[in-house]
């Protein structure tokens, strides 16, 4: 069997039934086998989008999404997608073609050292040098990518390895002696964690992306409800806990909810689940951990103590750890009443900001626009975002009701991620509506994926908050650079309705809250790719704002 054929068989054995990619000279043998296989191919217009689609597919289905690219520029074009997946612990398999083994190192046409280039941004990378290695490499790649803390794995296959015939066997199991993803949570530490939470007066749960990756929604909710502890999330953990729940305060951080930041600062003990305490979430590390007892649960031992001093650490899968905690609480009949001073304070704080937080007065202020979207969009819909102001407004004003339906490039902050990721999400979940909450600056970067959304019957809705500028940069220039505005004006180009139509998609311009509601309903009913272009106020800032290098207590509120 040829190396390329082995790859296809191995992919099928792993349950991969869809591949996002673009062919080129060095991966044509792979494409020739793809032609003969039952795996669905989604032809992208730029390899970066293929990697984001695989990423979106992986996050939603919680199994690795697969993308293909050729050697050289094909491979370097997916680097951003790989780095994005790594930063957000997303399972992905990237298969690149490489020049033939004899040509490696000779600066051949379309040769790039993608193994070297990708090293700091992959969970692991393979370069099989014989066709016989391919089945085991694929098996190991899926194993590494999807277990423990998930991440991207690269398989770089020289063209002759794709073509060469070899006797192969497909292993049903692989072992890697330096890789131990399964760590049983330490029960004694979980007991100590419960004691610490019960002994604290002002506990908070901080839910991170790990809760979503491990699907620990029910466990998290049980613990919050049994112990009556308010839940804040990181931005990546947004929607790990229903945001309409009475204990929910929403995301903390640079553009966190005012009530979440306020309560986080006042708390004396935090149960952090699958969070890496990023600077965007916690502000300055020293200030965050002052007067705070930190219980840290994470699947990755290297996260313990990386950014914060931890008092109790539980290493292991979040779902497994939380499940043990729930069992203990039930067995010991531990419950906490909801009528304590802390919860009273939490509720008052939430109510205060709901009543008094000033929202932008423009008729198409971000809060009004996004709350309208929430109102008309079914709760099980999947939402992705681009990167920029609209993303932070989504964090602030778009409540996630159904856990695990909100995805964003939170770690790397990759502009252009949301739209292709939404297409990947739609491929994983064709049964639910998928919406990309977008800004036009970010959408610009991968808008040519409209062709894919239309032609491959993966209709998603691009909900475009159009402020004709790179809004977040503009906000920083207004705030930190004395209004010296440079490099931000996109001058209302292109016309997004015409752009959508030129791809055969539906383009709707919505200029009032009422029109927005109707446009979304039209898009939901029509089931074709739709861009809803919403002209918003270019002067609107994202507030509250915790300036970089400051702490959550220094949050700037709208004046």
């Amino acid at each position, binding site marked *: 069997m040829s190396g390329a054929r082995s790859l296809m068989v191995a992919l099928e054995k792993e349950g991969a039934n869809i591949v996002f990619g673009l062919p080129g000279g060095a991966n044509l043998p792979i494409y020739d086998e793809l032609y003969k296989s039952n795996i669905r191919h989604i032809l992208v217009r730029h390899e970066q989008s293929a990697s984001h689609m695989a990423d979106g597919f992986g996050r939603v289905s919680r199994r690795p999404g697969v993308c293909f690219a050729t050697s050289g520029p094909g491979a370097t074009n997916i680097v951003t997608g790989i780095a994005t997946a790594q930063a957000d612990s997303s399972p992905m398999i990237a298969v690149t073609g490489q020049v033939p083994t004899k040509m490696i190192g000779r600066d051949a046409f379309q040769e790039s050292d993608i193994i070297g280039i990708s090293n*700091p941004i992959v969970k692991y990378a393979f370069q099989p040098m014989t066709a016989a290695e391919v089945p085991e490499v694929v098996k190991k790649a899926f194993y590494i990518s999807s277990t423990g803390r998930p991440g991207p794995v690269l398989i770089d296959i020289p063209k002759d390895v794709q073509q060469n015939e070899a006797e192969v066997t497909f292993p049903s199991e692989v072992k890697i*002696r*330096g890789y131990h993803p399964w760590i049983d949570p330490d029960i004694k530490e979980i007991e100590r964690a419960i004691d610490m939470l019960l002994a604290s007066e002002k506990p908070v749960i901080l839910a991170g992306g790990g809760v979503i990756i491990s699907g620990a929604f029910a466990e998290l909710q049980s613990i919050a409800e049994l112990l009556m502890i308010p839940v804040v999330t990181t931005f990546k953990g947004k929607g790990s806990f229903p945001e309409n729940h009475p204990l929910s305060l929403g995301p903390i951080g640079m553009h966190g909810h005012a009530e979440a930041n306020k309560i986080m600062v006042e708390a004396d003990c935090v149960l952090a689940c699958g969070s890496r305490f990023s600077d965007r979430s916690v502000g300055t590390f020293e200030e965050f951990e002052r007067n705070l007892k930190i219980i840290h649960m994470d699947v990755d031992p*290297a996260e313990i103590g*990386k950014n914060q001093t931890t008092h109790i650490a539980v290493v292991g899968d979040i779902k497994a750890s939380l499940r043990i905690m729930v069992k203990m609480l039930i067995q010991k009949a531990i419950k906490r009443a909801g009528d304590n001073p802390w919860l009273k304070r939490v509720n008052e704080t939430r109510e205060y900001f709901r009543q008094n937080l000033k929202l932008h007065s423009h008729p198409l202020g971000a809060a009004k626009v996004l709350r309208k979207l929430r109102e008309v969009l079914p709760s099980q819909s999947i939402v992705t975002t681009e990167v920029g102001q609209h993303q932070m407004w989504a964090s602030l004003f778009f409540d996630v009701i159904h856990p695990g339906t909100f995805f964003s490039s939170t770690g790397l902050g990759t502009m252009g991620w949301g739209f292709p990721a939404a297409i990947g999400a739609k491929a994983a979940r064709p049964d639910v509506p998928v919406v990309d909450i977008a800004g036009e600056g970010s959408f610009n970067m991968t808008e040519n994926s409209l062709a894919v959304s239309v032609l491959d019957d993966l209709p998603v809705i691009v909900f475009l908050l159009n402020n004709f500028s790179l809004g977040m940069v503009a906000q920083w220039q207004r705030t930190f650079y004395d209004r010296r505005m440079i490099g931000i004006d996109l001058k209302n180009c292109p016309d997004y309705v015409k752009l959508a139509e030129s791809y055969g998609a539906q383009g709707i311009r919505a200029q009032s809250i009422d029109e927005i509601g109707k446009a979304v309903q039209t898009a939901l009913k029509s089931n074709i790719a739709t861009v809803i272009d919403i002209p918003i106020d270019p002067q609107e800032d994202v507030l509250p704002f915790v300036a970089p290098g400051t702490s959550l207590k220094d949050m700037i509120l709208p004046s």
Partner: protein
Amino acid sequence: MWSIISVLVENKPGVLFKVTNLFRSRNYNIDSISVGITENPEFSRMTITTSADEKQLNQIIKQLDKMIDTVEVKLLDEKKSIYRELVLMKIKITKPSDIMEITDLSNAFKCNVHDVRKSSIIVEITATPDRINAFEDLVKGYGILEIARTGMCALERGVGNES
């Protein structure tokens, strides 16, 4: 303060690159590194010395442990380990009596003397960093022309090796 980390890794291409790239990308410092194949040809042992505070050292160990190509990562306790470095020093000879003096010093430090010439002499010293520094201090006056060092090599005392 430097620490010695002993890392057992898969003996295959690219692993040294990955380890050093980890140090570079996370802004850790490598003071010395020595690599060689072990009694089992599937593994290599890397001995890395680094100056880092306790918190950073902790992270280095964890990040190394997280690497899939590392099989075992150990922070060595100086008191419970044998650690040595081999240094070749080319020392300037100005007058004939220098040769005798340097040879005497070398004997005192159990060094080997090589390539004795009118203008230079090469001394090979295998010792702990303290002793190497002491020797270097003593011969500095003659003029050190060139130095090559292997980096630290270390093993834990007693019976180990279950791999």
